[in-house]
């Protein structure tokens, strides 16, 4: 599904990713943990094609294609989805129009017929229900005045409607109450179909109680410094990152 080799990336003249390798197979769930500022979100932004995130070396292959050569919207259309750590507020653009525009664009590129308004509405309502966000939020501006948790739920709604192949969730569980954590877990688990792959960036082992990862990685200093199975997450929870950083150094 996704193969990242020796990825180096720079933001505002500062090298953040420094030789990152990661391989994700179809249907797999990977968790990425790591200290603040280690480059987890940067990785997500690089994969999603955010301007200003300059790749200086390495490669990313997505389903056999050079992901880095694709425009941001092409990546999304071909099934890469990033749930932002800090979703963006867009006052004046209604959530509903935004969702319809995205779903239409993605479906169109896949050669699927556009959804008629009624079917779309039905799906949007179902997604709201699954994300436990009142349907009224569809009428508001995109993330406009949403609480932190509501924004995360809105990201889930987008993910459910767009049905991506590769879902990158950047701390979607942060800032959520315990119930909401289960909502995220349910959202992700309901989308697991053996083919769809997930990368969960999280600081909390808690989430992994609900979504069982196949692999856990530690990202520190812009590289994956340790990979393991879910027990690694438990170790980290107990011991923090210091021992790893010492080891790496």
């Amino acid at each position, binding site marked *: 599904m996704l193969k990242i080799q020796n990825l180096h990336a720079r933001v505002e003249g500062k090298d953040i990713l420094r030789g990152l390798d990661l391989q994700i197979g179809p249907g797999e769930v990977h968790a990425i943990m790591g200290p603040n500022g280690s480059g987890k979100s940067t990785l997500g932004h690089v994969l999603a094609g955010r301007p200003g995130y300059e790749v200086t070396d390495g490669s990313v292959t997505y389903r056999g294609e050079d992901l880095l050569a694709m425009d941001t919207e092409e990546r999304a259309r071909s099934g890469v989805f990033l749930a932002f750590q800090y979703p963006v507020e*867009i006052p004046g*653009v209604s959530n509903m129009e935004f969702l319809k525009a995205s779903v239409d664009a993605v479906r169109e590129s896949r050669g699927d017929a556009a959804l008629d308004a009624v079917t779309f509405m039905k799906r949007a309502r179902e997604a709201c229900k699954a994300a436990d966000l009142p349907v009224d939020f569809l009428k508001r501006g995109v993330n406009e005045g949403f609480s932190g948790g509501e924004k995360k739920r809105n990201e889930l709604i987008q993910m459910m409607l767009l049905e991506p192949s590769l879902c990158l969730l950047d701390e979607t569980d942060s800032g959520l109450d315990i119930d909401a954590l289960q909502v995220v877990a349910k959202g992700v688990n309901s989308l697991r179909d053996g083919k769809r792959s997930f990368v969960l960036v999280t600081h909390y082992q808690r989430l992994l109680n609900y979504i069982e990862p196949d692999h856990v990685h530690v990202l520190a200093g812009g590289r994956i410094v340790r990979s393991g199975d879910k027990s690694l997450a438990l170790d980290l929870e107990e011991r923090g990152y210091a021992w790893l950083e010492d080891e790496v150094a």
Partner: protein
Amino acid sequence: MGFMEQPLAEARAPHWLQSLQARGQSRWSAGKLPTRRTENWKYTPLTGLRDDYRVAAASDVAPAKLPDALAQGLGGTRLVFVDGVYQPSLSSVELPEGLQLCRFADASDAQAALIAEHLDTLVGGQAEPFASLNTATLRDGVFLHVAANADVQTPVHLLWLVRAADAPTAISQRVLVLAESGSRATVVEQFLSLNGAEASFTSGVTELKLEANAKLHHYRLHEESGEAIHIGAVHARLERDANLDSFHLALGSRLKRVDVVVHHAGPGAHADLNGVYLPRGDEHIDYHTTIEHAVPHCTTDEVFRGIVGDKATAVFNGRIHIHPDAQKTRAELSNRNLLTSTEAEVNTKPELEIYADDVQCAHGATVARIDDLALHYLRTRGVSRDEAEVMLSFGFINELIDGMALEPLREYLRPLLAKRFARDDTLARHLL
């Protein structure tokens, strides 16, 4: 020939307005055209004014067809003018109880007496030469009279179509609204080019008088295009507890300058003043607004937003003047601008002049470009850059359109504006 020489020579106000007209003419000839050194006109050069504007004779104006988007109308009375000439065949006058509407030319004696009493009382003292020019060249006007406590639900739609097909055309229009105490009404002023490119000069001056506790919804839409020039003004006076909700829109053309002046004359008056300006190409739009808080306990909420594209230029000057007696005033002014090209330019200047101490005032002006992060976010969801730009541009003014009370007008404007930002209509399809 000089600027407006023929229209001045052929001005024909009804006889009972002729002394007013004569005053306008002497003020006009005594005055001078503003230059770039005139403070109020600093960023609006008048180089586009021509010397050969002519008034269209009624017999020259062939009947027109209404643009499709307007054929359905707004569901009320409609007066239509083409090149300043009244078109009964396009108009439909159904006056609900409590509403009187006439053209100056058709005024009854009683109406004429009211017009003569009130006309030019809000504009007259101003040093603004183009207001004098309007009076000086006046031929026809519209008088709207809402009786005390009348609750008029349907809008009065005044539509000035500009065709100017044969020669550069001068159009001088005047509107007087007298809303008596406790009345409710809606008036829509709309200026629209029929074919687009022709040269014309319109002077549209409107006076709104709101007596105690009157509520007026007022809309003024400038959709003249191409070579059209409009220099016009709206003057409103609000007595005790009166409420004015005034919405302004200008699409660009060669030059548009609109002065909006609201005078709070009785305590408890409230004004909502909202506006949108959208010049592109090499168009120029200039809004000058002035709110006079002359008495205590009045409130004003003013929001103007502009999107300026290509090499277009815009001016927004918003002045709030709080007189010494106007304690307990609350006034807020916000002007935000979005530049969608590197060559677009806006000059924005909010001016607060406060001479009372117990007041609550806020003002702010911003000039920004399309938000890169918002654009990126939309693209990460598969939306193309072009469509995302259209959505963000429309989103910038959407709130003001959504806030319009008159639903048929909202429905008329929404697709019109959404498509305006899109090179092709499919890019606007999710906004319709």
